[in-house]
């Protein structure tokens, strides 16, 4: 009797396939839903004026120009610091040491760093950069904090990218009389560049979207930053304050729309560039 209820293998396959398809759909649907809500409420707010004028009356009026500038500054500083540090660490771990206890500890440390909540980074940045080093609430404090936050991502992706460079390339390079450093710079890094770029892009996305780590370190001043020691408000902090304090939901949605579109565009452009780069350096 029991046997009677068993599905035929082919039907079973079909059920599993449909089930997995539905699971995948949920992920995509969530993304579409978020995009739809934000764009529906935000797009009507967008105009050239919104992008190019500074906020007025706490953000109730005007645009978001200063927050865009602050976001770009912060992200730029974060990447300027984190990329060389992260790629350097990855080069050291893969090319300059063999696998042993020390490298495992470094890697484990980086992994742990990746798991720390961003608000803790904010607190750390506040204690170290804002207070101890007396950078105050500033673009510099915020940028450095973000740098440490994205560092593990850059280390991890760079390491994977460098490891995936065929060992034969290194051997060929050494056999042509290159030193270790020449092999790294002329052969390994160019081949690993698309992978490294992926990590950098992920980090740009995280930096732009980060709120908790920034609000403690860069502050929330609305004026246009005049130096790396000025305080400033990023787009995501601006959104948070507008929505949290009930200042203006339309402006909040407008800001969110700019954020989302910016991140989408960065991703699309990078994948396009990477595609071109890869086609130039590999067959077909």
């Amino acid at each position, binding site marked *: 009797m029991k046997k009677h209820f068993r599905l035929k293998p082919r039907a079973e396959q079909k059920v599993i396939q449909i089930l997995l398809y539905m699971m995948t759909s949920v992920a995509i649907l969530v993304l579409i839903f978020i995009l739809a809500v934000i764009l529906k409420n935000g797009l009507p707010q967008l105009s050239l004026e919104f992008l190019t004028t500074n906020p007025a009356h706490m953000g109730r009026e005007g645009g978001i120009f200063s927050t865009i500038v602050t976001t770009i500054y912060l992200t730029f500083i974060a990447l300027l610091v984190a990329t060389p540090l992260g790629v350097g660490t990855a080069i050291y771990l893969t090319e300059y040491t063999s696998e042993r206890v020390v490298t495992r500890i470094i890697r484990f440390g980086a992994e742990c760093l990746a798991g720390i909540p961003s608000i803790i980074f904010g607190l750390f940045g506040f204690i170290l950069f804002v207070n101890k080093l007396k950078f105050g609430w500033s673009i510099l404090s915020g940028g450095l904090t973000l740098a440490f936050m994205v560092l593990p991502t850059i280390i991890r992706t760079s390491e994977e990218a460098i490891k995936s460079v065929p060992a034969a*390339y290194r*051997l060929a390079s050494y056999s*042509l*009389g290159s030193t270790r450093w*020449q092999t790294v710079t002329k052969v390994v890094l*160019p081949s690993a560049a698309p992978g490294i770029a992926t990590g950098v892009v992920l980090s740009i996305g995280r930096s732009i979207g980060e709120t908790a780590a920034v609000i403690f370190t860069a502050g929330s001043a609305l004026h246009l930053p005049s130096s790396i020691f000025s305080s400033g408000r990023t787009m995501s902090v601006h959104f948070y304050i507008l929505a949290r304090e009930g200042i203006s939901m339309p402006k909040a949605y407008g800001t969110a729309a700019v954020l989302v579109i910016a991140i989408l565009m960065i991703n699309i452009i990078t994948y396009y560039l990477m595609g071109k780069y890869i086609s130039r350096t590999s067959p077909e």
Partner: protein
Amino acid sequence: MRDTAIQVVNFSHFYGQQQSLKNLNLVIYRREILGIIGPARSGKSTFLTCLNRLNDLVPGSRVSGNILIDGQDIYQPEVEVAALRRQLGMVFATPVPLPMSIYDNVVFGPKLQGQTNRGELDRLVEDCLEKAGLWAEVKDRLKISALKLSGGQQQRLCLARVLALKPEYILLDEPTSGLDPISTMKIEDTLRLLKKDYTIILVTNNTKQAARVADRTAFFLMGELVEVNETGIIFTRPSDKRTENYIEGRFG
């Protein structure tokens, strides 16, 4: 008296505890093609990578005894390894073009040396590709990725890249093992031409290849040099029974 180029004296090599080369004694003459034959794991390739010290990169690699190249013991601490490797250019079993253009592959070595004069580099590229027998096929597309070439073309490119180093010696590690007969023939023709300017050491799994191109042939077995002699003698009346067995295909 023939001119001695490389002298190997009581040379042994180890990977960790395992001995891969056992007390080799061998002389290589200038401007000859020395073929090295032997079954898999006989130490042929290891011997080549000991000559240009590429083996240094393998963890646990260790040597004893001496290799004298042009009278210089290459395992002395004062030897600059990068310069040594330029002297002994190497072509690997599988072609390894670097992921860049044909042109950039050829000038890779010279550029590392700081050579930047465009005109000189252009001439060098033409000269080396010509010598490697590839110029006619690629002269109109030097800027395309080297990875787009066929396997045989890639291997000749690797040879051209080695020639651009202006080496004294060319080490070939089963250079035609992955190639079709026509590509193999082209490489062998090139080697015969190169012999007048270079000392060539050719490791091959294909005993017939050694018979075709080598002046002298050495037979390696289990890390030992069984015998070395004029190719004609090795293939007609070898002095060791094991050589005869191998050549006649009774093992290996």
